């Protein structure tokens, strides 16, 4: 009996069945989903006008801070909390509103959340009253039996991608450079999605202070392309 050299066929793991919920999550978080994400810069427009963000490197640093220590982290935690269902979502939504650091931040999450809840409830037959976007997403992911970590990671990646698109309209930033920034932020999006899964409501905190200031100052910014 001779030994048989293993073939590629015999060592490869069998293909994973395609997870339909992942495809649906991708649909929800694609720029084509009608929540109007393109209208918001999350204070980035102020940061560009103030000269705090000027190129790919400073954009990456700005977004890194927001993802790891600002609304990226808090939004991911709201997604987890809404998914866990330990608190009624209406209660979480009220808390998330009180946590909003600036009026345009609140409106950004409120309008996108209302649009998301309306479309998603209608198409998938879910129970989604109007809520801030991350709370609505977490609640929808729970009702669909989705993986909260994937929901948070895709949300953060979409959030970063949207702001990088906004940056391309605000300053000179080529397509290749922009995609480079997205790709360098991807591991951070995954890390934040994972690490926030270990946190509770008591851990809700944010230290992206200048990003809050940028959001506040955007209210009177002239001229302005974005709603936040």
């Amino acid at each position, binding site marked *: 009996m001779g030994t048989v050299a293993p073939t590629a066929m015999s060592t490869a793991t069998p293909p994973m069945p395609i997870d339909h919920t992942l495809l649906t999550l991708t649909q929800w978080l694609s720029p084509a989903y009608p929540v109007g994400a393109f209208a918001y810069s999350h204070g980035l427009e102020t940061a560009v006008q103030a000269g705090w963000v000027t190129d790919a490197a400073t954009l990456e640093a700005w977004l890194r801070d927001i993802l790891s220590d600002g609304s990226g982290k808090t939004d991911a935690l709201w997604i987890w909390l809404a998914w866990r269902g330990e608190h009624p979502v209406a209660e979480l939504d*009220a808390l998330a509103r*009180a946590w909003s*650091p600036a*009026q345009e931040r609140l409106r950004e999450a409120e309008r996108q959340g209302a649009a998301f809840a309306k479309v998603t409830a209608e198409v998938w037959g879910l129970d989604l009253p109007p809520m801030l976007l991350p709370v609505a997403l977490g609640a929808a992911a729970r009702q669909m039996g989705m993986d909260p970590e994937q929901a948070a990671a895709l949300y953060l990646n979409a959030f970063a991608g949207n702001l990088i698109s906004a940056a391309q309209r605000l300053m000179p930033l080529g397509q290749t450079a922009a995609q480079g920034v997205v790709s360098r932020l991807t591991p951070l999006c995954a890390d934040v999605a994972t690490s926030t899964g270990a946190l509770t409501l008591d*851990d*809700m*905190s944010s230290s992206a*202070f*200048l990003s809050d200031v940028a959001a506040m100052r955007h*209210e009177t910014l002239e001229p302005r392309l974005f709603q936040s």
Partner: protein
Amino acid sequence: MTLHMREKQAATLPKANILPRARGTLDLTTKPRGDRSAIDRLRTSGCVRVLFPRSERAVEAIVINTSGGLTGGDSLSLAAVAGAGSHLTLTTQAAERAYRASADVARVETRLAAQAGSLLQWLPQELILFEGARLRRRLRVDMAADARLLLAEPVIFGRTAMGERLRDVVFSDRIAVWRDGAPLYLDGLDLRGDLESAMARPALGGGAGAMVSLVYVAPDAEAQLAPLRDMMPETGGVSLMRADLLVVRLLASDSLELRRSLLPVLDRLSRDTLPISWRL
């Protein structure tokens, strides 16, 4: 022990912490008396003392931590109520210092209430974080629907002018304002490790060494928005979250610069009733 001695000891003592651990409590309630306000109940214990330099329209309370600063294992628990229809202004005699703590964290819990028709002003002077500090602060305010509030919490991230650098600090802070049983304003930060590097990051502090978070709840909040916007430096923002809720986040290079921007704002929102200890 004087403040100076404690500061010196805190800086030079070896890791085995032999500093006495300070405990202190405050329990204060005010009530209206004619068109003024008066003390209704007062109890203090441990390292907390209170001075009442004047009680006119508002009771003005200056809270003193006689231990001279916060260090590991210290615990302060402050409770104050602006009783229905009364005015209460709380401040501190001087900046509060959070010193190096070898093991335990220092804890400060503040529980405030503003009853129907009252005015509560929580205006402590700066918290100064020193290298090695371990501090956990929790502030909760419960307001009646028609109560008014002015709250400001200034924090200094090390006395940079004196060459101090924060490389190893744990600072956890929460502010929670509830009205009629519902959350109105929530804020909090958890900073750990090298705070100098953290505050240098572009969307965190952009190199700032001082910060204040301010909350103003009053029927005229909307009318204060435009004047306050004009008073903000480039690193400060003000936003109207509701018709009667105004919030400010303001960063500055150091404590002096912070005061330069903050004092006019506090004068305006307190209608020139800022406690005298802020001027010393």
